[in-house]
Protein backbone atom coordinates (compact mmCIF):
# COMPACT_ATOMS: atom_id res chain seq x y z
CA UNK A 1 0.00 0.00 0.00
CA UNK A 2 1.35 3.38 -0.98
CA UNK A 3 0.23 6.32 1.15
CA UNK A 4 -0.19 9.98 0.35
CA UNK A 5 2.78 10.71 2.59
CA UNK A 6 4.93 8.29 0.55
CA UNK A 7 4.05 10.12 -2.65
CA UNK A 8 4.78 13.52 -1.09
CA UNK A 9 8.20 12.23 -0.05
CA UNK A 10 8.91 10.76 -3.50
CA UNK A 11 7.80 13.93 -5.25
CA UNK A 12 10.18 15.90 -3.07
CA UNK A 13 13.06 13.56 -3.95
CA UNK A 14 12.13 13.71 -7.64
CA UNK A 15 11.79 17.52 -7.51
CA UNK A 16 8.17 17.57 -8.57
CA UNK A 17 5.21 19.56 -7.28
CA UNK A 18 1.96 17.63 -7.46
CA UNK A 19 -1.50 19.16 -7.26
CA UNK A 20 -4.01 17.65 -4.84
CA UNK A 21 -5.67 15.91 -7.79
CA UNK A 22 -2.35 14.58 -9.10
CA UNK A 23 -1.49 13.32 -5.63
CA UNK A 24 -4.71 11.32 -5.36
CA UNK A 25 -4.29 9.70 -8.74
CA UNK A 26 -0.59 9.03 -8.03
CA UNK A 27 -1.53 7.15 -4.83
CA UNK A 28 -3.94 4.98 -6.82
CA UNK A 29 -1.58 4.40 -9.76
CA UNK A 30 1.46 3.72 -7.61
CA UNK A 31 -0.46 1.26 -5.44
CA UNK A 32 -1.37 -0.67 -8.59
CA UNK A 33 2.11 -0.44 -10.08
CA UNK A 34 3.82 -1.48 -6.86
CA UNK A 35 1.38 -4.39 -6.55
CA UNK A 36 2.45 -5.44 -10.00
CA UNK A 37 6.14 -4.99 -9.15
CA UNK A 38 5.67 -7.06 -5.98
CA UNK A 39 5.33 -10.16 -8.18
CA UNK A 40 9.10 -10.40 -8.16
CA UNK A 41 9.87 -9.60 -4.56
CA UNK A 42 9.39 -13.19 -3.35
CA UNK A 43 11.32 -14.88 -6.15
CA UNK A 44 14.47 -16.62 -5.03
CA UNK A 45 17.24 -15.65 -7.42
CA UNK A 46 19.88 -17.75 -5.63
CA UNK A 47 23.31 -16.28 -6.21
CA UNK A 48 22.57 -15.01 -9.72
CA UNK A 49 23.55 -11.40 -10.12
CA UNK A 50 23.40 -9.06 -13.04
CA UNK A 51 26.84 -8.17 -14.28
CA UNK A 52 26.73 -6.68 -17.73
CA UNK A 53 25.04 -6.98 -21.11
CA UNK A 54 26.89 -8.54 -24.01
CA UNK A 55 30.20 -8.37 -22.15
CA UNK A 56 30.23 -4.57 -22.27
CA UNK A 57 31.92 -2.83 -19.42
CA UNK A 58 33.28 0.68 -19.36
CA UNK A 59 34.16 0.79 -23.03
CA UNK A 60 35.98 4.05 -22.52
CA UNK A 61 38.11 5.74 -25.12
CA UNK A 62 41.79 6.60 -24.64
CA UNK A 63 42.19 9.43 -22.14
CA UNK A 64 43.45 11.98 -24.62
CA UNK A 65 42.39 15.61 -24.62
CA UNK A 66 40.16 16.30 -27.58
CA UNK A 67 38.53 19.41 -28.86
CA UNK A 68 35.15 20.03 -27.25
CA UNK A 69 32.34 22.49 -27.83
CA UNK A 70 32.73 26.28 -27.81
CA UNK A 71 31.39 28.06 -24.77
CA UNK A 72 29.16 30.23 -26.97
CA UNK A 73 27.64 27.17 -28.57
CA UNK A 74 26.90 25.54 -25.24
CA UNK A 75 25.18 28.69 -24.00
CA UNK A 76 23.09 29.00 -27.15
CA UNK A 77 20.17 27.10 -25.68
CA UNK A 78 19.89 29.52 -22.75
CA UNK A 79 19.78 32.71 -24.82
CA UNK A 80 23.53 33.08 -24.68
CA UNK A 81 23.80 32.97 -20.89
CA UNK A 82 25.50 35.92 -19.24
CA UNK A 83 29.23 36.68 -19.24
CA UNK A 84 29.98 33.11 -20.27
CA UNK A 85 27.91 31.58 -17.47
CA UNK A 86 24.55 29.90 -17.17
CA UNK A 87 22.34 32.48 -15.60
CA UNK A 88 19.45 32.26 -13.17
CA UNK A 89 17.53 35.09 -11.59
CA UNK A 90 18.90 36.45 -8.34
CA UNK A 91 16.90 35.41 -5.32
CA UNK A 92 16.89 36.12 -1.62
CA UNK A 93 15.96 33.87 1.25
Amino acid at each position, binding site marked *: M*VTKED*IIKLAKL*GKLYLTEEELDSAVKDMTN*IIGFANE*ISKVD*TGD*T*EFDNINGLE*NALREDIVEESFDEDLILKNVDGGKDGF*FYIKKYQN
Partner: protein
Amino acid sequence: MSGTNGKIRHIHDLLVNKKITCKELTEKYIDKIKESKLNAYVHTCEDLAIKTAEKVDEKISSGKEISMLEGIPMNLKDNISTDGIETTCCSKMLQGYKPIYDATVWKKLKGDNAVLLGKANMDEFAMGSSCENSCFGGACNPHNLKHVAGGSSGGVASAVGGNIAVYGLGSDTGGSIRQPASFCGLVGLKPTYGSVSRYGLIAFGSSLDQIGPIASNVEDVAIVYDSISGYDTKDSTSSKVAPNDTFNHLNDDIKGMKIGIPKEYFDGINEDVKNAIDEAIDAYKSMGAEIEYFDLPELKYTLPVYYIIACAEASSNLGRYDGIRYGYKTKQYKDIEEMICKTRSEGFGEEVKRRILLGTYVLSSGYYDAYYKKAQNLRGTIIKAFKRAYEKFDVILAPTVPTTAFEFNFTSMDPVQTYLTDICTVPVNIAGLPAVSLPCGFDSKDLPIGMQLIGNSFSEDKILNLAYKYEQYTEAKYLKELDMGVRL
Protein backbone atom coordinates in the same frame (compact mmCIF):
# COMPACT_ATOMS: atom_id res chain seq x y z
CA MET B 1 7.77 -0.91 -56.27
CA SER B 2 7.63 -4.37 -57.77
CA GLY B 3 8.01 -7.85 -56.33
CA THR B 4 9.91 -8.12 -53.08
CA ASN B 5 12.79 -5.87 -54.02
CA GLY B 6 13.47 -3.19 -51.52
CA LYS B 7 12.11 0.29 -51.91
CA ILE B 8 15.50 1.89 -51.30
CA ARG B 9 17.04 -0.04 -54.18
CA HIS B 10 14.07 0.82 -56.39
CA ILE B 11 14.40 4.56 -55.70
CA HIS B 12 18.18 4.35 -56.02
CA ASP B 13 17.72 2.89 -59.52
CA LEU B 14 15.23 5.62 -60.46
CA LEU B 15 17.74 8.27 -59.39
CA VAL B 16 20.76 6.69 -61.07
CA ASN B 17 18.81 6.06 -64.28
CA LYS B 18 17.61 9.69 -64.21
CA LYS B 19 13.92 8.74 -64.22
CA ILE B 20 13.42 11.35 -61.51
CA THR B 21 15.72 13.93 -59.95
CA CYS B 22 16.36 13.83 -56.25
CA LYS B 23 14.90 17.32 -55.94
CA GLU B 24 11.65 16.26 -57.65
CA LEU B 25 11.49 13.20 -55.43
CA THR B 26 12.07 15.25 -52.28
CA GLU B 27 9.45 17.84 -53.30
CA LYS B 28 6.90 15.06 -53.78
CA TYR B 29 7.52 13.92 -50.20
CA ILE B 30 7.40 17.46 -48.82
CA ASP B 31 4.07 18.11 -50.58
CA LYS B 32 2.58 14.88 -49.27
CA ILE B 33 3.76 15.62 -45.73
CA LYS B 34 1.93 18.97 -45.91
CA GLU B 35 -1.28 17.23 -47.01
CA SER B 36 -0.97 14.39 -44.51
CA LYS B 37 -3.42 13.92 -41.64
CA LEU B 38 -1.30 11.32 -39.86
CA ASN B 39 0.42 13.74 -37.43
CA ALA B 40 3.60 11.74 -38.05
CA TYR B 41 5.96 14.73 -38.16
CA VAL B 42 6.51 17.25 -35.40
CA HIS B 43 9.15 19.37 -37.17
CA THR B 44 10.04 19.38 -40.86
CA CYS B 45 13.28 20.53 -42.42
CA GLU B 46 12.39 21.43 -45.98
CA ASP B 47 15.41 23.65 -46.70
CA LEU B 48 17.95 21.09 -45.58
CA ALA B 49 16.13 18.36 -47.52
CA ILE B 50 16.10 20.37 -50.76
CA LYS B 51 19.75 21.41 -50.32
CA THR B 52 20.81 17.80 -49.82
CA ALA B 53 18.72 16.68 -52.80
CA GLU B 54 20.41 19.27 -55.01
CA LYS B 55 23.80 18.01 -53.88
CA VAL B 56 22.83 14.46 -54.84
CA ASP B 57 21.51 15.63 -58.24
CA GLU B 58 24.77 17.41 -58.90
CA LYS B 59 26.70 14.23 -58.15
CA ILE B 60 24.51 12.17 -60.46
CA SER B 61 24.64 14.66 -63.31
CA SER B 62 28.42 14.87 -63.09
CA GLY B 63 28.58 11.09 -63.50
CA LYS B 64 29.68 10.31 -59.92
CA GLU B 65 28.54 7.13 -58.24
CA ILE B 66 26.10 7.44 -55.36
CA SER B 67 25.68 5.06 -52.45
CA MET B 68 22.44 3.21 -51.80
CA LEU B 69 21.16 5.64 -49.16
CA GLU B 70 22.14 8.85 -50.93
CA GLY B 71 19.12 10.95 -51.78
CA ILE B 72 16.65 8.64 -50.05
CA PRO B 73 14.03 10.65 -48.10
CA MET B 74 13.82 9.57 -44.46
CA ASN B 75 13.06 10.75 -40.95
CA LEU B 76 14.34 10.51 -37.39
CA LYS B 77 12.47 10.01 -34.16
CA ASP B 78 12.44 13.27 -32.22
CA ASN B 79 14.78 11.96 -29.52
CA ILE B 80 17.74 11.62 -31.94
CA SER B 81 19.87 14.77 -31.76
CA THR B 82 20.21 16.82 -34.93
CA ASP B 83 22.61 19.76 -34.94
CA GLY B 84 20.63 23.00 -35.23
CA ILE B 85 17.32 21.20 -35.78
CA GLU B 86 14.75 21.19 -32.99
CA THR B 87 14.79 17.94 -30.99
CA THR B 88 12.08 17.88 -28.35
CA CYS B 89 11.34 14.26 -27.39
CA CYS B 90 7.78 15.52 -27.90
CA SER B 91 7.94 17.10 -24.46
CA LYS B 92 7.12 20.63 -23.41
CA MET B 93 10.37 20.32 -21.44
CA LEU B 94 12.45 20.48 -24.61
CA GLN B 95 10.36 22.69 -26.88
CA GLY B 96 12.65 24.99 -28.80
CA TYR B 97 15.75 22.98 -27.88
CA LYS B 98 18.24 22.78 -30.75
CA PRO B 99 21.12 20.37 -30.12
CA ILE B 100 24.61 21.62 -30.89
CA TYR B 101 25.81 18.29 -32.23
CA ASP B 102 24.60 15.35 -34.30
CA ALA B 103 23.85 11.89 -32.95
CA THR B 104 26.37 9.45 -34.42
CA VAL B 105 23.67 7.63 -36.42
CA TRP B 106 22.56 10.87 -38.04
CA LYS B 107 26.15 11.95 -38.63
CA LYS B 108 26.70 8.71 -40.53
CA LEU B 109 23.55 9.06 -42.64
CA LYS B 110 24.14 12.77 -43.22
CA GLY B 111 27.60 11.90 -44.49
CA ASP B 112 25.81 9.66 -46.95
CA ASN B 113 23.55 12.54 -48.12
CA ALA B 114 20.41 11.01 -46.63
CA VAL B 115 17.51 13.44 -47.17
CA LEU B 116 16.10 14.28 -43.74
CA LEU B 117 12.45 15.26 -44.15
CA GLY B 118 11.85 15.95 -40.50
CA LYS B 119 11.58 14.72 -36.94
CA ALA B 120 8.95 12.15 -36.14
CA ASN B 121 6.31 12.09 -33.42
CA MET B 122 6.78 9.91 -30.33
CA ASP B 123 5.55 9.36 -26.80
CA GLU B 124 7.08 11.97 -24.51
CA PHE B 125 10.66 10.89 -23.71
CA ALA B 126 9.81 7.54 -25.38
CA MET B 127 7.54 6.58 -22.48
CA GLY B 128 4.47 4.93 -23.88
CA SER B 129 3.06 2.34 -26.22
CA SER B 130 0.68 4.39 -28.34
CA CYS B 131 2.37 7.73 -29.13
CA GLU B 132 -0.55 9.39 -27.32
CA ASN B 133 1.79 10.71 -24.62
CA SER B 134 3.27 13.15 -27.16
CA CYS B 135 2.77 16.84 -26.35
CA PHE B 136 1.84 17.21 -30.04
CA GLY B 137 -0.94 14.57 -29.86
CA GLY B 138 -0.66 11.00 -31.13
CA ALA B 139 0.32 9.80 -34.61
CA CYS B 140 -2.37 7.94 -36.58
CA ASN B 141 -2.14 4.44 -37.93
CA PRO B 142 -2.10 4.74 -41.73
CA HIS B 143 -4.16 1.52 -42.01
CA ASN B 144 -6.99 3.11 -40.03
CA LEU B 145 -6.77 6.67 -38.78
CA LYS B 146 -8.96 5.91 -35.75
CA HIS B 147 -6.26 3.59 -34.45
CA VAL B 148 -2.90 4.48 -32.97
CA ALA B 149 0.36 4.01 -34.84
CA GLY B 150 1.85 2.46 -31.70
CA GLY B 151 4.73 3.70 -29.64
CA SER B 152 6.86 5.08 -28.72
CA SER B 153 8.34 5.47 -32.24
CA GLY B 154 4.81 6.00 -33.58
CA GLY B 155 5.64 8.90 -35.88
CA VAL B 156 8.37 7.01 -37.72
CA ALA B 157 6.06 4.03 -38.32
CA SER B 158 3.11 6.24 -39.25
CA ALA B 159 5.20 8.14 -41.83
CA VAL B 160 6.82 5.05 -43.35
CA GLY B 161 3.48 3.20 -43.50
CA GLY B 162 1.82 6.28 -44.98
CA ASN B 163 4.57 6.66 -47.64
CA ILE B 164 5.76 10.04 -46.41
CA ALA B 165 9.24 8.65 -45.65
CA VAL B 166 11.05 5.69 -47.16
CA TYR B 167 12.51 4.69 -43.82
CA GLY B 168 13.21 6.15 -40.42
CA LEU B 169 15.22 5.60 -37.29
CA GLY B 170 13.44 4.95 -34.02
CA SER B 171 14.58 3.85 -30.59
CA ASP B 172 13.55 0.74 -28.67
CA THR B 173 13.71 0.61 -24.87
CA GLY B 174 10.94 -1.94 -24.32
CA GLY B 175 9.55 -2.48 -27.82
CA SER B 176 9.29 1.06 -29.18
CA ILE B 177 10.56 0.12 -32.65
CA ARG B 178 8.98 -3.33 -32.98
CA GLN B 179 5.52 -2.54 -31.62
CA PRO B 180 4.75 0.41 -33.95
CA ALA B 181 6.29 -1.53 -36.86
CA SER B 182 3.91 -4.39 -36.04
CA PHE B 183 0.90 -2.05 -35.71
CA CYS B 184 1.64 -0.35 -39.04
CA GLY B 185 2.52 -3.47 -41.08
CA LEU B 186 6.24 -2.63 -41.32
CA VAL B 187 9.62 -4.16 -40.58
CA GLY B 188 11.42 -2.83 -37.50
CA LEU B 189 14.77 -3.90 -36.11
CA LYS B 190 15.89 -3.53 -32.52
CA PRO B 191 19.63 -4.24 -32.79
CA THR B 192 21.87 -5.92 -30.20
CA TYR B 193 22.61 -3.61 -27.25
CA GLY B 194 25.90 -1.92 -28.09
CA SER B 195 25.89 -2.57 -31.84
CA VAL B 196 24.54 0.86 -32.84
CA SER B 197 25.88 3.99 -31.17
CA ARG B 198 23.55 5.70 -28.71
CA TYR B 199 25.57 8.92 -28.75
CA GLY B 200 23.08 11.74 -29.24
CA LEU B 201 20.05 9.63 -28.39
CA ILE B 202 18.28 11.44 -25.56
CA ALA B 203 18.42 8.92 -22.72
CA PHE B 204 15.44 7.09 -21.23
CA GLY B 205 16.70 3.75 -19.84
CA SER B 206 20.37 3.67 -20.71
CA SER B 207 20.93 -0.07 -20.23
CA LEU B 208 17.93 -0.82 -22.46
CA ASP B 209 17.81 1.92 -25.14
CA GLN B 210 18.85 1.05 -28.68
CA ILE B 211 18.45 2.90 -32.00
CA GLY B 212 17.25 0.96 -35.04
CA PRO B 213 15.52 1.27 -38.42
CA ILE B 214 11.87 0.97 -39.44
CA ALA B 215 11.16 0.41 -43.15
CA SER B 216 8.58 -1.20 -45.38
CA ASN B 217 10.57 -4.36 -46.13
CA VAL B 218 13.44 -6.47 -44.82
CA GLU B 219 15.98 -5.49 -47.45
CA ASP B 220 15.66 -1.79 -46.61
CA VAL B 221 16.09 -2.50 -42.91
CA ALA B 222 19.27 -4.47 -43.68
CA ILE B 223 20.72 -1.65 -45.80
CA VAL B 224 20.06 0.95 -43.10
CA TYR B 225 21.29 -1.25 -40.24
CA ASP B 226 24.55 -1.97 -42.08
CA SER B 227 25.18 1.73 -42.49
CA ILE B 228 24.46 2.82 -38.90
CA SER B 229 26.04 -0.03 -36.91
CA GLY B 230 29.58 -0.17 -35.57
CA TYR B 231 31.81 0.88 -32.69
CA ASP B 232 31.76 4.50 -31.56
CA THR B 233 34.27 5.99 -29.14
CA LYS B 234 31.61 8.52 -28.09
CA ASP B 235 29.32 5.81 -26.64
CA SER B 236 30.81 4.12 -23.61
CA THR B 237 28.53 1.11 -24.06
CA SER B 238 29.39 0.71 -27.73
CA SER B 239 30.59 -2.78 -28.62
CA LYS B 240 33.87 -3.52 -30.33
CA VAL B 241 32.45 -6.69 -31.86
CA ALA B 242 32.51 -6.04 -35.61
CA PRO B 243 28.90 -5.65 -36.80
CA ASN B 244 27.78 -8.34 -39.19
CA ASP B 245 27.02 -7.54 -42.76
CA THR B 246 23.33 -8.34 -42.97
CA PHE B 247 22.61 -7.29 -46.56
CA ASN B 248 24.83 -9.94 -48.12
CA HIS B 249 23.32 -12.71 -45.98
CA LEU B 250 19.65 -12.04 -46.69
CA ASN B 251 19.42 -14.87 -49.17
CA ASP B 252 21.40 -17.52 -47.24
CA ASP B 253 19.86 -20.97 -47.10
CA ILE B 254 17.76 -21.44 -43.95
CA LYS B 255 17.29 -25.20 -44.30
CA GLY B 256 18.02 -26.92 -41.00
CA MET B 257 17.93 -23.66 -38.99
CA LYS B 258 16.50 -24.31 -35.56
CA ILE B 259 13.66 -22.05 -34.48
CA GLY B 260 12.51 -22.22 -30.86
CA ILE B 261 9.06 -21.09 -29.81
CA PRO B 262 8.57 -20.25 -26.12
CA LYS B 263 5.06 -21.33 -25.12
CA GLU B 264 4.76 -18.50 -22.59
CA TYR B 265 4.58 -15.91 -25.37
CA PHE B 266 1.18 -17.24 -26.39
CA ASP B 267 -0.59 -16.79 -23.06
CA GLY B 268 -3.59 -14.52 -23.55
CA ILE B 269 -2.84 -13.42 -27.08
CA ASN B 270 -5.56 -12.44 -29.52
CA GLU B 271 -6.92 -15.30 -31.67
CA ASP B 272 -6.18 -13.59 -35.01
CA VAL B 273 -2.60 -12.95 -33.88
CA LYS B 274 -2.20 -16.57 -32.79
CA ASN B 275 -3.50 -17.89 -36.11
CA ALA B 276 -1.17 -15.65 -38.10
CA ILE B 277 1.84 -16.77 -36.04
CA ASP B 278 0.83 -20.42 -36.49
CA GLU B 279 0.71 -19.87 -40.25
CA ALA B 280 4.15 -18.27 -40.19
CA ILE B 281 5.48 -21.26 -38.23
CA ASP B 282 4.07 -23.56 -40.94
CA ALA B 283 5.74 -21.43 -43.60
CA TYR B 284 9.11 -21.87 -41.89
CA LYS B 285 8.51 -25.61 -41.65
CA SER B 286 7.83 -25.70 -45.39
CA MET B 287 11.07 -23.80 -45.98
CA GLY B 288 12.99 -26.52 -44.16
CA ALA B 289 13.55 -24.88 -40.78
CA GLU B 290 13.21 -27.07 -37.70
CA ILE B 291 10.59 -25.91 -35.22
CA GLU B 292 10.47 -26.80 -31.54
CA TYR B 293 8.29 -25.46 -28.73
CA PHE B 294 9.96 -24.99 -25.36
CA ASP B 295 9.39 -23.51 -21.91
CA LEU B 296 10.88 -20.19 -20.87
CA PRO B 297 9.25 -19.73 -17.44
CA GLU B 298 11.53 -16.80 -16.57
CA LEU B 299 9.50 -14.70 -19.01
CA LYS B 300 6.80 -14.15 -16.41
CA TYR B 301 9.12 -11.86 -14.46
CA THR B 302 10.24 -9.70 -17.35
CA LEU B 303 7.52 -7.05 -17.20
CA PRO B 304 7.97 -6.03 -13.55
CA VAL B 305 11.76 -6.34 -13.96
CA TYR B 306 11.57 -4.10 -17.01
CA TYR B 307 9.40 -1.41 -15.42
CA ILE B 308 11.54 -1.30 -12.28
CA ILE B 309 14.84 -1.00 -14.18
CA ALA B 310 13.54 1.33 -16.90
CA CYS B 311 11.91 3.70 -14.41
CA ALA B 312 14.92 3.67 -12.09
CA GLU B 313 17.18 4.63 -14.98
CA ALA B 314 14.67 7.19 -16.27
CA SER B 315 14.35 8.91 -12.90
CA SER B 316 18.11 9.30 -12.84
CA ASN B 317 18.45 10.33 -16.52
CA LEU B 318 15.68 12.89 -16.25
CA GLY B 319 17.34 14.52 -13.26
CA ARG B 320 19.22 16.72 -15.75
CA TYR B 321 16.11 18.75 -16.63
CA ASP B 322 16.42 21.53 -14.11
CA GLY B 323 15.75 24.59 -16.27
CA ILE B 324 19.32 25.85 -16.03
CA ARG B 325 21.30 24.63 -19.02
CA TYR B 326 18.71 24.07 -21.72
CA GLY B 327 15.05 23.31 -22.21
CA TYR B 328 12.01 24.76 -20.52
CA LYS B 329 12.34 27.08 -17.56
CA THR B 330 9.48 28.27 -15.37
CA LYS B 331 8.71 31.98 -15.45
CA GLN B 332 8.12 32.80 -11.77
CA TYR B 333 10.10 31.46 -8.83
CA LYS B 334 11.38 32.65 -5.50
CA ASP B 335 14.38 30.38 -5.00
CA ILE B 336 16.36 27.70 -6.81
CA GLU B 337 14.43 24.79 -5.29
CA GLU B 338 11.19 26.30 -6.48
CA MET B 339 12.66 27.03 -9.89
CA ILE B 340 13.68 23.39 -10.40
CA CYS B 341 10.47 21.91 -9.02
CA LYS B 342 8.20 24.27 -10.98
CA THR B 343 10.19 23.76 -14.16
CA ARG B 344 9.90 19.99 -13.90
CA SER B 345 6.25 20.00 -12.84
CA GLU B 346 5.23 22.29 -15.71
CA GLY B 347 7.55 20.73 -18.29
CA PHE B 348 6.93 17.02 -17.83
CA GLY B 349 3.72 15.23 -18.80
CA GLU B 350 1.71 12.82 -16.70
CA GLU B 351 3.35 9.52 -17.71
CA VAL B 352 6.86 10.94 -17.33
CA LYS B 353 6.06 12.15 -13.79
CA ARG B 354 4.58 8.75 -12.96
CA ARG B 355 7.76 7.00 -14.04
CA ILE B 356 9.99 9.43 -12.18
CA LEU B 357 7.96 8.69 -9.03
CA LEU B 358 8.18 4.92 -9.56
CA GLY B 359 11.90 5.09 -10.34
CA THR B 360 12.51 7.22 -7.26
CA TYR B 361 10.50 4.75 -5.16
CA VAL B 362 12.41 1.63 -6.24
CA LEU B 363 15.74 3.38 -5.71
CA SER B 364 14.88 4.93 -2.36
CA SER B 365 16.32 3.63 0.86
CA GLY B 366 14.29 0.80 2.33
CA TYR B 367 12.98 -0.32 -1.07
CA TYR B 368 16.18 -0.61 -3.09
CA ASP B 369 16.88 -4.25 -2.18
CA ALA B 370 13.31 -5.44 -2.54
CA TYR B 371 12.79 -3.90 -5.96
CA TYR B 372 15.81 -2.58 -7.81
CA LYS B 373 18.39 -5.10 -6.56
CA LYS B 374 15.93 -7.97 -6.99
CA ALA B 375 15.08 -6.80 -10.51
CA GLN B 376 18.78 -6.63 -11.41
CA ASN B 377 19.35 -10.17 -10.09
CA LEU B 378 16.36 -11.40 -12.06
CA ARG B 379 17.75 -9.67 -15.10
CA GLY B 380 20.79 -11.94 -14.72
CA THR B 381 18.48 -14.96 -14.47
CA ILE B 382 16.57 -13.94 -17.61
CA ILE B 383 19.81 -13.38 -19.58
CA LYS B 384 21.00 -16.85 -18.56
CA ALA B 385 17.71 -18.42 -19.63
CA PHE B 386 18.02 -16.87 -23.08
CA LYS B 387 21.65 -17.96 -23.40
CA ARG B 388 20.59 -21.50 -22.55
CA ALA B 389 17.93 -21.36 -25.26
CA TYR B 390 20.51 -20.25 -27.82
CA GLU B 391 22.62 -23.32 -27.10
CA LYS B 392 19.79 -25.19 -28.74
CA PHE B 393 18.19 -22.75 -31.18
CA ASP B 394 19.40 -20.33 -33.82
CA VAL B 395 16.45 -18.01 -33.42
CA ILE B 396 13.35 -17.59 -31.24
CA LEU B 397 10.03 -16.77 -32.89
CA ALA B 398 7.18 -15.01 -31.06
CA PRO B 399 4.34 -12.57 -31.61
CA THR B 400 5.46 -8.93 -31.41
CA VAL B 401 2.34 -7.70 -29.62
CA PRO B 402 -0.57 -9.75 -28.20
CA THR B 403 -3.03 -7.58 -30.18
CA THR B 404 -3.27 -5.38 -33.25
CA ALA B 405 -3.33 -1.56 -33.09
CA PHE B 406 -5.80 -0.27 -30.53
CA GLU B 407 -8.08 2.71 -30.94
CA PHE B 408 -7.14 6.11 -29.56
CA ASN B 409 -7.79 6.53 -25.80
CA PHE B 410 -8.04 2.78 -25.36
CA THR B 411 -5.27 2.32 -22.82
CA SER B 412 -4.92 5.69 -21.16
CA MET B 413 -7.10 4.88 -18.14
CA ASP B 414 -4.99 2.31 -16.32
CA PRO B 415 -1.19 2.44 -16.52
CA VAL B 416 -0.71 -1.22 -15.50
CA GLN B 417 -3.03 -2.36 -18.32
CA THR B 418 -0.97 -0.31 -20.76
CA TYR B 419 2.29 -1.77 -19.42
CA LEU B 420 0.94 -5.30 -19.95
CA THR B 421 0.76 -4.76 -23.72
CA ASP B 422 4.57 -4.71 -23.75
CA ILE B 423 4.78 -8.31 -22.53
CA CYS B 424 6.21 -9.78 -25.76
CA THR B 425 8.73 -7.05 -26.54
CA VAL B 426 10.48 -6.23 -23.23
CA PRO B 427 12.37 -9.53 -22.71
CA VAL B 428 14.60 -8.63 -25.67
CA ASN B 429 15.68 -5.34 -24.07
CA ILE B 430 16.23 -6.95 -20.68
CA ALA B 431 18.61 -9.44 -22.32
CA GLY B 432 20.22 -6.98 -24.79
CA LEU B 433 19.28 -9.17 -27.77
CA PRO B 434 18.49 -8.22 -31.38
CA ALA B 435 14.95 -8.75 -32.69
CA VAL B 436 13.12 -7.89 -35.88
CA SER B 437 9.36 -7.47 -36.18
CA LEU B 438 7.82 -8.21 -39.56
CA PRO B 439 4.28 -8.37 -40.90
CA CYS B 440 2.68 -11.82 -41.01
CA GLY B 441 -1.05 -11.21 -41.46
CA PHE B 442 -4.10 -9.03 -40.93
CA ASP B 443 -6.85 -9.31 -38.34
CA SER B 444 -10.60 -9.28 -39.01
CA LYS B 445 -10.49 -5.45 -39.10
CA ASP B 446 -7.73 -5.54 -41.71
CA LEU B 447 -5.13 -4.25 -39.25
CA PRO B 448 -1.60 -5.65 -39.58
CA ILE B 449 -0.22 -8.42 -37.34
CA GLY B 450 3.49 -8.71 -36.62
CA MET B 451 5.80 -11.48 -35.50
CA GLN B 452 9.28 -11.10 -34.13
CA LEU B 453 12.40 -13.12 -34.67
CA ILE B 454 14.72 -12.85 -31.71
CA GLY B 455 18.39 -13.70 -32.17
CA ASN B 456 21.35 -14.28 -29.94
CA SER B 457 23.53 -11.19 -29.39
CA PHE B 458 25.19 -9.95 -32.59
CA SER B 459 23.18 -12.21 -34.90
CA GLU B 460 21.31 -9.54 -36.88
CA ASP B 461 22.42 -11.34 -40.04
CA LYS B 462 20.58 -14.50 -39.00
CA ILE B 463 17.28 -12.89 -38.00
CA LEU B 464 17.18 -10.67 -41.08
CA ASN B 465 18.03 -13.68 -43.25
CA LEU B 466 15.07 -15.59 -41.80
CA ALA B 467 12.83 -12.53 -42.10
CA TYR B 468 13.81 -12.00 -45.74
CA LYS B 469 13.21 -15.64 -46.62
CA TYR B 470 9.73 -15.43 -45.11
CA GLU B 471 9.00 -12.27 -47.08
CA GLN B 472 10.09 -14.03 -50.29
CA TYR B 473 8.20 -17.22 -49.47
CA THR B 474 4.95 -15.35 -48.84
CA GLU B 475 5.60 -13.20 -51.94
CA ALA B 476 5.45 -10.13 -49.75
CA LYS B 477 1.68 -10.48 -49.45
CA TYR B 478 1.67 -8.92 -46.00
CA LEU B 479 3.58 -5.85 -47.15
CA LYS B 480 0.51 -3.89 -48.13
CA GLU B 481 1.45 -0.62 -49.79
CA LEU B 482 -1.27 1.85 -48.90
CA ASP B 483 -2.80 4.23 -51.39
CA MET B 484 -1.48 7.42 -49.82
CA GLY B 485 1.64 9.50 -49.75
CA VAL B 486 4.30 9.13 -52.43
CA ARG B 487 3.98 6.03 -54.61
CA LEU B 488 6.70 5.31 -57.13
